[in-house]
């Protein structure tokens, strides 16, 4: 019955559903998990790196965390190829704003612009929607540290902590139990490691399996620092976590 509706992105089914959008959301549920936590003095983003084969060359750079502005990072869940198109778009939009107004683009505006593009693919026919969800972590003068989540339908929301991708529901329930709103960045990072280690099926985490990024303020230079962590820095946090696990 649904056959005749699900190949067209812009046609509602009799039950009022857009099947292609739902299939896109399904694609994201097969991706590795990514999570973000807002702290008082920064934001942490973490993602699971799926190791498909040991023959595959291990890339030093992150596959799921990207810079999109001097004050903004994002984490990806879904089709990486689709994500690259959107990330390119987001970077250009941010830089065009900087060129015209000589100040960094407010985070929510940038998120909305990308979501407008995504929404278009659910309404104008002929093409499939982007199969990606994003977690945006950013800082601006208007609202300080912010975390946004977006999905293929073009919806977005602002969160204190959230996750996307496969396993995201179990991460979210852990977050509901453990999140406090007065934590600092170190505590948030420790929390991110904990959530990942509880939801990933492997028993020991390594830098090959996860990616890490933070936004915080460098108080000496009075400048925001967006950093995607190197493998030795990730190992340091993991070691610290395993240390505390052993003690308790």
């Amino acid at each position, binding site marked *: 019955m649904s056959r005749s509706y699900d190949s067209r992105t812009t046609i509602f089914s009799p039950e009022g559903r857009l099947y292609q959008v739902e299939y896109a959301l399904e694609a994201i549920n097969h991706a590795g998990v990514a999570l973000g936590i807002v702290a008082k003095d920064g934001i942490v983003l973490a993602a699971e790196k799926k190791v498909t084969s040991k023959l595959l060359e291990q890339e030093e750079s992150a596959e799921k965390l990207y810079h999109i*502005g001097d004050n903004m990072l994002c984490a990806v869940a879904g089709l990486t190829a689709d994500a690259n198109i959107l990330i390119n778009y987001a*970077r250009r939009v941010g830089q065009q704003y900087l060129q015209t107004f000589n100040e960094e683009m407010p985070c929510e505006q940038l998120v909305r612009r990308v979501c407008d593009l995504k929404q278009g693919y659910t309404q104008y026919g002929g093409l499939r929607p982007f199969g990606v969800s994003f977690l945006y972590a950013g800082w601006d003068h208007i609202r300080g540290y912010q975390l946004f989540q977006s999905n293929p339908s073009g919806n977005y929301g602002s969160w204190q902590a959230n996750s996307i991708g496969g396993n995201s529901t179990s991460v979210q329930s852990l977050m509901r139990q453990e999140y406090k709103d007065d934590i600092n960045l170190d505590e948030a990072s420790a929390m991110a490691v904990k959530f990942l280690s509880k939801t990933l099926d492997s028993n020991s985490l390594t830098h090959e399996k996860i990616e890490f990024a933070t936004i915080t303020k460098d108080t000496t230079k009075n400048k925001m620092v967006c950093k995607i962590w190197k493998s030795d820095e990730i190992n340091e946090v993991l070691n610290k976590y395993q240390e505390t696990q052993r003690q308790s």
Partner: protein
Amino acid sequence: MSIMEYNGGSCVAMAGKNCVAIASDLRLGVQSISLTNNFPKVFAMGDKTYLGLTGLATDVQTLYELFRYKVNLYKFREERQIQPKTFANLVSSTLYEKRFGPYFSFPVVAGVSNDNTPFICGFDSIGCIDFAEDFIVSGTATEQLYGMCESVYEPNLEPDDLFETISQALLNAQDRDCISGWGCVVYVITADKCIKRLVKGRQD
């Protein structure tokens, strides 16, 4: 009257031993009328890559904004800073895109590469690169700067000596040019740091 001499301004870059320096005057005017003494013409394009822009002030600002855009996109994509040599080619190709309606600016690039080699170069308004081992001059005091640089420059200077040399070259050159001057800004770039100094000059 040439459009290149409408607002006035000069820039100079010098290479030393594992270091480079780039300096510009601070004046902005309309022909002989000075408007401000706080208009630097040197811009950071990376930790160790700097761009000097002389010529028509509106094009100086536009080019700075354009290169900031391009360099930021490069930085996000590559997850590293742009190298001076790469940036020089970016400047060249960007200027040549406007071959038949050029920006009225003669840029200067100075920087230290990842392997600590100093790099300086200059351009004409349509992007022809002038690679140099010693110094590059640009702007309305070009002739005076050539004279100063050819007499005070010596190769393999240490950062402090390079600062003294470039400051003296620029200050004395701009004193002999009506539409450059009002102090200068000097950047000395070494492998591990970059020092920015404001040098007070004649205020007349």
